[in-house]
């Protein structure tokens, strides 16, 4: 209780101080998303139209508003060597993108020589499961309610070198009444670390955590010649995610395996000197990927869910590779390939084009073409067309064809 009051007072202090301090506020708001139609009434997730989805669904569902980012960083420089700050919505567990937690972070930073030492106290809130319920809560509510828990993070920074250790009390993350109600198992507390630096021109990152089980990840990248970047991620863990249907949604749960498995991704990023285009090729082998029969079982489970808002089981869970924001792999498949190209500058000043082709075993092909047109500099119109060429017999994709439009309005100070 005392902690809550202290944090509340500090938060109000920083909010008021932010008027006088440097303030960065970034809003990316998609005001209309998920406008889609179905070409085929026998859509993969809805064979025979058992969910009674209209063939040409021309609704403009506001419930599909997505991609609302609100990142605030308030910082106050006490003197030249001491900093206080608070960050909202910091992405904590970087390596496991599907294990997203919201972190309201209070940090104290101190320098000695050319090094910096951060001590971070944060309040964590889960993104999955109970996290969905809490999304609508206010900032202060999230900071002070019983769902969120304190964590401690220490960081050492010197030039390109970074080292951090953290302790996150996940065990009591989800309250007992919720776990009993939804038959969820509790997580364990986590002790983790992360470090990154360079060996010559070779970038490396190592992350890991222990919570009675282990997770270790290594990431490498190097620009071997100008314009050609090689990168790779390798992870080992003895846990894997399994899906379970809870109520009208799908939840994911970590399950312990007898043997650890490997997940490896390798990518190439090339930009020719004569083109303002970048090309990516990535391939990924997931030793724990679903086999043909497992994929069919999963597909059957999905068919029982009658509420699939924001759920894209085929491609919905982004891989934790270094370019995850660009290439969301089919994380369920054993083997995946992706070819992606994009103009990284606006063509003729007004058009940005991206095209991504996926091929997954045993999933199939998908191609997605995205056009982005900026209006009035801070308004962007996005249109994307996804087309799945071949699903085989696995009916676990939400759309065969989809056409989406969104308008993004950005305020940035």
């Amino acid at each position, binding site marked *: 209780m005392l902690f809550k009051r202290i944090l509340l007072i500090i938060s109000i202090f920083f909010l008021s101080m932010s008027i006088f301090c440097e303030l960065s506020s970034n809003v990316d708001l998609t005001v209309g998303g998920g406008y889609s139609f179905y070409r085929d009434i026998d859509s993969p997730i809805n064979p025979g139209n058992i969910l009674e989805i209209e063939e040409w669904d021309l609704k403009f569902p506001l419930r599909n508003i997505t991609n609302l980012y609100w990142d605030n960083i308030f910082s106050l420089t006490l003197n030249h060597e001491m900093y206080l700050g608070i960050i909202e919505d910091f992405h904590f567990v970087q390596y496991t993108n599907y294990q997203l937690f919201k972190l309201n972070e209070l940090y104290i930073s101190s320098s000695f020589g050319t090094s910096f030492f951060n001590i971070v106290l944060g309040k964590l809130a889960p993104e999955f499961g109970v996290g969905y319920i809490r999304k609508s809560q206010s900032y202060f509510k999230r900071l002070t309610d019983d769902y969120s828990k304190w964590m401690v993070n220490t960081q050492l920074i010197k030039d390109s070198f970074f080292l*951090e250790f953290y302790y996150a009390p996940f065990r009591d993350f989800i309250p007992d009444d919720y776990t009993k109600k939804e038959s969820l198992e509790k997580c364990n507390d986590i002790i983790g670390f992360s470090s990154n630096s360079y060996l010559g021109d070779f970038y490396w990152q190592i992350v890991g955590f222990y919570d009675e089980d282990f997770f270790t990840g290594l990431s490498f990248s190097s620009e071997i010649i100008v314009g050609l970047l090689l990168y790779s991620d390798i992870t080992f863990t003895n846990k894997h995610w399994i899906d379970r249907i809870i109520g009208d949604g799908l939840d994911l749960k970590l399950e312990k395996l007898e043997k650890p498995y490997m997940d490896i991704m390798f990518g190439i990023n090339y930009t020719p000197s004569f083109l303002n285009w970048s090309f990516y090729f990535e391939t990924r082998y997931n030793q724990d990927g679903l086999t043909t029969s497992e994929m069919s079982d999963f597909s059957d489970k999905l068919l029982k869910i009658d509420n699939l808002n924001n759920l894209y089981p085929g491609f919905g869970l982004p891989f934790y590779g270094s370019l995850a924001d660009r290439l969301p792999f089919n994380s369920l498949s054993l083997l995946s390939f992706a070819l992606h190209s994009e103009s990284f500058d606006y063509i003729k000043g007004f058009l940005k084009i991206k095209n991504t082709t996926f091929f997954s075993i045993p999933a199939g092909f998908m191609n997605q073409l995205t056009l982005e047109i900026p209006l009035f500099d801070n308004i962007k119109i996005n249109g994307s067309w996804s087309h799945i060429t071949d699903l085989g017999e696995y009916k676990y994709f939400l759309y065969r064809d989809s056409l989406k439009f969104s308008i993004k309005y950005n305020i940035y100070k």
Partner: protein
Amino acid sequence: MKKNYYITIFLLLTNILFSQDQDLLKVDSYRMVEPSGFSFDFHLEEESKTKKSEYTMRVYVKDNSSNYAICKYLKPDKMKGRVILVDRKNFWYLDRGMKTPIRINSRQMLFGQASAGDITRIIFSDYYSLTSTTNEGEQLRLELKSIPKKGAVYSSIVLYVESGTYKPVFAECYAKSGKLLKNIEYTGFGIYKGNEVLTEMIISDADGRSVSRVSLLNFSSDKLDDRYFNKSQISRIP
């Protein structure tokens, strides 16, 4: 006798190399504003047959090594909020809505005709070695060769500077194949804290298809804290 001969040769070579380094440092003095770090606005107007555009970014240089720099896009609004970290020869990119930065190759940060290197690698002596100096009347012709594995943008540069002052006048930038890629004309200089610094240059394609006018404005000793010049920290830049 033979020993003295080697010593003489060594001293001669050292003297030549040292003086050449000194020459390059004199040229760099027009671009390195404050050794302890500084910031400036990099404003670019690009003009080609098909389009005309303007960009502005705030560049924070960590220290006199120029190994570390952070570029924050200010204009146009559609790019506002982007941050590029230059960590020696490595580039990390963070855009709005992204939680963690991704690594990009050095060609992916184009800023009109100016490459990332043109913007952030402002010190010749860090990336190039001086191979020859020729006196051409009022100007000196300096031939620079890229230092291997330093991440220099161009393979070689022929740089013309004023005799005596070493103020840069004109540069021809070449690819490894020997092909002329860009011409840079140094057109404007200003005074900052009593020192003369470069404030304007014109970068043009070798084929003349597009021309970029670069202005370096609002020099300031304001700098970002050293801790932000780390890939793990750029998302926290206020």
